[in-house]
């Protein structure tokens, strides 16, 4: 039996120009309370300038068991990185 309030994930933009980053979660009755709790719980020391709260149930995550199938194929595609290509030292600005 679970009588908890809705679980929200909290994201903070630490300063203007940076992306929001996941910092943790909390329970709240509604979205507004989630923002207020996030402010009290995660930004007591000027950790951020903006908050996002997202219902945890709305997040779709990849399956850790499929991590290899999803991410391993990128491992041998080194030609996607600039260092794969040998350019003579004399050539500048490349």
């Amino acid at each position, binding site marked *: 039996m679970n009588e908890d309030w809705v679980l929200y994930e909290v994201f903070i933009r630490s300063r203007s120009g940076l992306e929001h980053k996941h910092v943790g979660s909390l329970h709240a*009755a509604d979205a507004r309370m989630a923002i207020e709790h996030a402010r009290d719980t995660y930004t007591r020391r000027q950790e951020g300038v903006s908050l996002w709260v997202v219902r945890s149930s709305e997040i779709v995550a990849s399956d850790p068991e499929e991590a290899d199938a999803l991410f391993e194929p990128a491992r041998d595609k080194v030609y996607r990185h600039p260092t794969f290509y040998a350019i003579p030292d004399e050539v500048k600005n490349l």
Partner: protein
Amino acid sequence: MYTQALDSAGSAAPQGEADEDGRLERFQARIDRDEKIEPKDWMPEDYRQTLIRQIAQHAHSEIVGMLPEGNWITRAPSLRRKVVLIAKVQDEGGHGMYLYSAAETLGVSRTTLIEQLLSGRAKYSSIFNYPTLTWADIGAIGWLVDGAAIMNQIPLCRCSYGPYARAMVRICKEESFHQRQGYELMLALARGSAAQRAMAQDALNRWWWPSLMMFGPSDAHSVHTAQSMRWKIKRFSNDELRQKFISVTVPQAQYLGLTVPDPELRWDEAAQHYRAGPINWSEFHAVLKGDGPCNRERLAARREAHEAGRWVREAAAAYAEKHGAGAVPARSG
């Protein structure tokens, strides 16, 4: 603030679990490579249960830990001391929230955790069952109790379970102020009148041994240490951490001009640190069992707060339902 190796009843030994498809072995290999385990990853049931127990005890300790210090907020001797103490107590509440969230990632609900605390089934750090009799106790708690907590918690920042380790990083960053404000408070008393110095000495006398007990039973009697070390939930044994604490704290007491209340305390020339006399473990076990000076008072205060807040939780849930926040349970426990 305060984790404690409590060695409450554990579950079956992990060796008993059948290793389907070598999963246990692959899990241990990940731990050995210092990889972090995340909530959706496969993990042995004993690893999960050990973490739930430890993180929950840690969270309960933060919440109950607000009580002894909260006792002095209205009587802080200056506005500066009052805002500091309020900020510290608020931090403890925040730490409890981080930790409950981390425990919930392992599949236990917040309601269950709170019920375990309020029913008296869950344990929390023994230190909070001692009373705060004078203002100097607020200094001694910050200096000694938070100091001991920091010793315990720094290694937990490298714990193998990701959500716990991340919560601990956040907590440790905030904890340093707690310890420093406590020592500064002790310093003010130590430099004050004879009566103030006596008050500081009295606080040290009462908090020294309970602080040493915060590190949990001695290694010889610590049932879970070996397995927790293999899983990298724990990085140092109880006695190692306790010794580290003694080594750094005795010189701090000397600087204050206070005497550590241990007639057998001596300098170990070979080891280059101080060694404490024997700890009264029967006191530790009595406090854990519920017979400390304040066990009943602490739980009664938590229950009263929970009950007194019920109408607020119910009103918030009703409001959310009415305004279409949707899927909000009518009752919040």
